Structure formats: C-alpha cells, structure tokens
C-alpha cells in the first residue's frame, strides 16, 4: 500500500458523513457490557453506544456523569464487528481526544452526560473521528454541523421511555425545513439570524429540503411502534438507549425494533414485530420530572 498511501485522504468530511449514511435505516443501541454488545449485534444493530450507565440509571443515580472507562469501551470494541460509538461530555474535547485514540468509530457529544462547558461545544473539525450531536430544533442542528458534527440526532428526553420529546424535536426540525420552501435569499438571511444558524448551512438545507447530514431519532424510544413513528416522521434511523436493556426481554425487543425500523411503513409487519415482547421499560411522564433534571436543555 506504500505507493498509494500519499493519495489516501483520511478523516475527510465525506468519510465522516459517509459512515452516517451507511447507518441509515438502522438501530444504534446503548450497551454497558460486552455481552450486551453481542446481544445487540445478534439482533441486527448497525452500531452500539458503549456506556457505563444507560440514561435511565444516570437519571436515577444522579452525580456527575462522565465519559466511560476506556477499559469498558475497549472491551466492547473487541466484542463486536459493527461500529462502536461512545459519549463524551459537551465541550470536553479531551474526553473526545481519548475516545478517538481508543479507536471508537463515532463520538456522541451528549447532553446525557454532565456538560463540561456551559458556553461552547467541541470544535469537531480537527478530529479524524466523526461526531454526532443532539438537537431540539433546526438552529441547534445547524450550529452543531457548523462546529463539525457529521450526524445529528434529536435530543428527545433520554432515559424516560417516553417518545413525546423526540417527536417534538423531530417535528420542530422538519417543520422549520418545510417553511424554508420558496423563501427568498434576503428572507433566508433573516431566518438564519432568527434561529441562530449559519446562513450558508441554512441555504444548503433549503436547497436539499433536508438537513445536510443524516438525522436520527433519539431519546425515549421504547417500542417497535415508537421506532416506526419516528421513521414515518422522516428521521433516517433510530437510537435506543435504556429502552432495550431496561425491558423484560432485551433480545426479542431489540430484534423487533430493528424490524420495525426497516418495515416502518408496513403496519402488518409492525403488528407481528410487536407481539409478545414482554413488558417495555416502565417510563416516566415528562411533566413529573423536576425541570432542573431535564437533559434536553443542556447544550446551546
């Protein structure tokens, strides 16, 4: 390979955003052990998110939530052949450097962990590893892309098993994109100012009629029907956090959510996939959570 090494370009935008394209139509599952990672891979996950605690436990136990132990991340990398993602705290670029050196395939700069910087997200451009970031609306999505995120997900409200916030965020993004249709150049600049987004990225979004990068749904998805709902609302794929391994029968539920994400527009197949899965995770009413404990408000 030495004769071509000079012409091989690594860590380019095409390569970073390209991996997200390959994950489309798939399910990315939170796992806390190598065994769970293997169950997820067996069930058809396109990638796993290596974590010490799933969001439901972070929520319950409190304290500062940080990047996972590198030993755990490496153990999960060794256990599966599908891509492995891991989370770092918002703004904590050193955690990101460490995760990159471990060889993770994607970094989630995540509001599920306790933020390390209350003003700035990580400048993600210098990294060779791609990043995914959460958003609640179009402005937030485009700010993250401006910082170098090669993939976007809704924030939803992680660890609740309640899909309502993910629906709110997905509708906010797609509604804002729809309203760009037919808008004039001078109006586009003012809209960019209003939503706090770079005008060039907003212009590209208007031209494409969708975000310039892949957009997954995350935060509260617990059933095959939840996954299909988000797909029908126009997302490109699904993150499931606590929803699988906090359920009664994780393997069966994981397989069913994978099937539901592929056949999201076939109610007959969804009905079959949803049959006899045992109990879903218990779940939380968003209104019952104290405001300061909501995760989606983290990030700016």
């Amino acid at each position, binding site marked *: 390979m030495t004769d*071509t090494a000079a012409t091989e370009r*690594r860590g380019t935008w095409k*390569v970073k955003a390209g991996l997200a394209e390959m994950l489309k139509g*798939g399910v990315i599952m939170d796992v806390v052990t190598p065994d769970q990672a293997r169950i997820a891979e067996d069930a058809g996950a396109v990638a796993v998110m290596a974590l010490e605690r799933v969001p439901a436990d972070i929520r319950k136990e409190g304290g500062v939530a940080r990047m996972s132990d590198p030993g755990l991340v490496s153990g999960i990398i060794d256990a599966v052949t599908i*891509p492995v993602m891991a989370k770092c705290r918002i703004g904590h670029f050193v955690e990101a450097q460490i995760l990159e050196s471990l060889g993770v395939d994607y970094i989630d700069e995540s509001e599920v962990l306790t933020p390390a910087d209350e003003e700035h997200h990580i400048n993600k451009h210098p990294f060779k590893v791609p990043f995914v970031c959460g958003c609640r609306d179009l402005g937030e999505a485009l700010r993250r892309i401006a910082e170098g995120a090669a993939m976007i997900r809704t924030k939803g409200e992680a660890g609740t098993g309640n899909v309502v916030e993910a629906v709110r965020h997905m509708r906010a993004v797609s509604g804002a994109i729809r309203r760009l249709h037919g808008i004039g150049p001078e109006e586009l600049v003012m809209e960019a100012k209003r939503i706090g987004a770079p005008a060039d990225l907003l212009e590209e979004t208007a031209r494409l009629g969708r975000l310039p990068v892949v957009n997954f749904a995350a935060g509260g998805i617990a059933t095959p029907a939840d996954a299909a709902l988000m797909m029908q609302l126009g997302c490109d794929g699904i993150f499931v956090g606590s929803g699988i391994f906090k359920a009664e029968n994780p393997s069966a539920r994981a397989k069913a959510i*994978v099937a539901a994400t592929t056949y999201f527009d076939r109610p007959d197949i969804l009905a079959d996939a949803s049959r006899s899965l045992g109990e879903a995770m218990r779940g939380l009413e968003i209104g019952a959570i104290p405001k300061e404990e909501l995760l989606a408000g983290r990030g700016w």
Partner: protein
Amino acid sequence: MSPKRRRFGVLALQGDFREHLAALRACEVEGVPVRLASELEAVDGLILPGGESTTMIRLMEPALDAAIRRRAHAGMPVLGTCAGMILMASLVEDGRPDQQPLDLMDITVRRNAYGRQVDSFEATVDVPLLGGPGPAVFIRAPRVTTHGDSVEVLAELGSEPVALRQGNRVALAFHPELTSDRRWHQYVLSLDGEKR
C-alpha cells in the same frame, strides 16, 4: 432492444440505498426499493448498497435470499458496494457462522480489513475499463483476500483488488454512490440481462 435496464432494484433493508436510487435517477433509470421477495420480481437488476452486512443478512427474509441467488445465477446484473460486496462473497473470513453471505461471486472477503473508522479514506482509483481514474470512498471497507479464476479484477488500489466482476455481477470495496462518478452504475446498467 435497448441494452439499458428499465427498472433496477436497490436492496432497501438498511444502508445508503437512497444514494443508489439517486444515482439510478441520474442515469435516467427507474430505481425500485426492494425489501421483500415480491418486490424483486418487478426489477431487471439489483444493487446491494453500503451499510452493515450483519444487519442486512439478519433482516433478509429467506424467500428474498433465495430469489436473489436464483436470479443472479441466471444472469441478473448485480452491483454490490462495500457491505454489498460482503453479501456477494462466497465466504466472509471473520463472518458469523449463523450469517451466510449470498454466495454470488467466487471471492473471499475480510470485513473492516482497512481498520476502524479513523482509517477510512478517500482515494483515486484507476479503472482502465471505464476510461480512467475515478474517486473512491472507502468506509470501514472490506478486503478481498482470495478470488477464483473466473473472477476478473477491474481495479486495484496498490496491489489489492477493489473492483471485481464475475459474469454480470460486479463487486466494489468502495462507494461510487457517495461521489458524482456515475460510470459504475452506467456500466452495470449496460450489462446484458438474464433470459426471462
């Protein structure tokens, strides 16, 4: 009779099938997403896209698996990119025993053989058959470790085969669909079809 196929399928279980459908549109051919065996009947050729091969194999219903094998061996043109190449192999070296590829070509592949995502890369690949070099995006790409005598190497990177053909079946380790180079799609569209 036009050598061009009129309707071309793209396996749409998971992965970047949207980009392949767009590439077909750019070639002025109707692209059809294929998830079920019944949907394969309506197409004259098939593209196996990039994505996660373990996921696609897990999701493929047995009837679709059987129909693809039968029609490909009868001469249906097939293009596989990255994960699609893995699906076309006769053997996956680090594959799972419970997940068999479609065995459409006499090639053995190793998954993720170029390394993890930080090792993914863009390169320029020379393709004499298509009239010269073109852009190629390798994302956690597979490597072809051995291939049979009836398999023709269409392009190499370094000294490694990255594009191969056997009959009407073409397997690429990279993703032309992520670039604006439509020559691979046009090439596969120009292949003779099966006798139906």
